[in-house]
């Protein structure tokens, strides 16, 4: 998982969500005149972490019931439904669809590179040629 984490990695016990990120999200959600107390923000972070545990635990059970070893996104969606968060499932399913599509596109890109039969050097040369061509075109249209 490539994920740039600023501010160091918390030890196991202090595992929580980044304060700055949550603070920003909260202020984006609140109406203009309303602010959030620090204490409240910290409590909200705890609630979020608890939510993760709740969903994960339920999803884990569902996963086991299906005799699977890896918790899949579909298990999360079922867990949300079971715990009364059906209102979330539409958007969540949409995110899942996008993610799968992105994965497919990534794979397609890699395959395209492998299948075109040209080596990296040859591809680079082709790219340079295209650049030169467009540069020329640009210069002539300038005059």
């Amino acid at each position, binding site marked *: 998982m490539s994920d740039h984490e600023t501010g160091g990695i918390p030890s196991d016990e202090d595992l929580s969500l980044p304060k700055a990120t949550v603070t*920003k999200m909260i202020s984006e959600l609140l109406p203009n005149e309303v602010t959030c*107390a620090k204490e409240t923000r910290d409590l909200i972070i705890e609630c979020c972490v608890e939510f993760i545990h709740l969903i994960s635990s339920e999803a884990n059970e569902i996963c086991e019931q299906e005799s699977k070893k*890896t918790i899949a996104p579909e298990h999360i969606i079922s867990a949300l439904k079971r715990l009364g968060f059906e209102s979330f499932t539409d958007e969540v399913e949409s995110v899942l669809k996008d993610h799968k599509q992105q994965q497919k596109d990534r794979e397609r890109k890699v395959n395209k590179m492998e299948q075109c039969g040209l080596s990296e050097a040859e591809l680079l040369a082709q790219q340079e040629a295209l650049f030169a061509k467009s540069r020329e075109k640009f210069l002539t249209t300038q005059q």
Partner: protein
Amino acid sequence: MKNKNKATKFPVARIKRIMQKDEEVGKVAQATPVVISKALELFLAMIVKEASNVTVERGSKRVEAYHLKHAIETVDMLDFLKEIVEAVPDPSAGGTIDIEAEAAERKKRGKGKDKKGSSDANGGEKPAPKRRRRKAADKEKEEDEKEEEQEMEVEEGREEEEDEAENGGRSRPDDDDDDWEG
């Protein structure tokens, strides 16, 4: 509605680690924390909305802890969060404090820096406790009395941190030693 900055997202790797803190949780598919991140966004939006509704209802401009608590107690879906806000005092009712919950909470959080708010509210609950404030020298005796002082444990712990500030303010006559004999 405010324009939400689409770039602000929860850290996916962090979510995975939080999930795996639970020993029951084994392998997690790569897409799973991504999906949880979305669910979390929606959850955050919901909880902030509910809390801010209470804030506005009460004519306040700042979302306080007890607004959040009220929202959690009102919405069924948020039942699982009741323990987290149990220790938050509700000013209108005079505030009942569940000492055990508070003690458990503090252990979980470690040293809480922004606790001053709630501790001050609690301070008004009981009359200034007659307690000896001894430092290292009498630590042993203090520990023996830990059981009797179980009730006060929470306040004492917290006050040790705020020692410098509070000590001057409160009158704590050492003559009260007699009360604690035996």
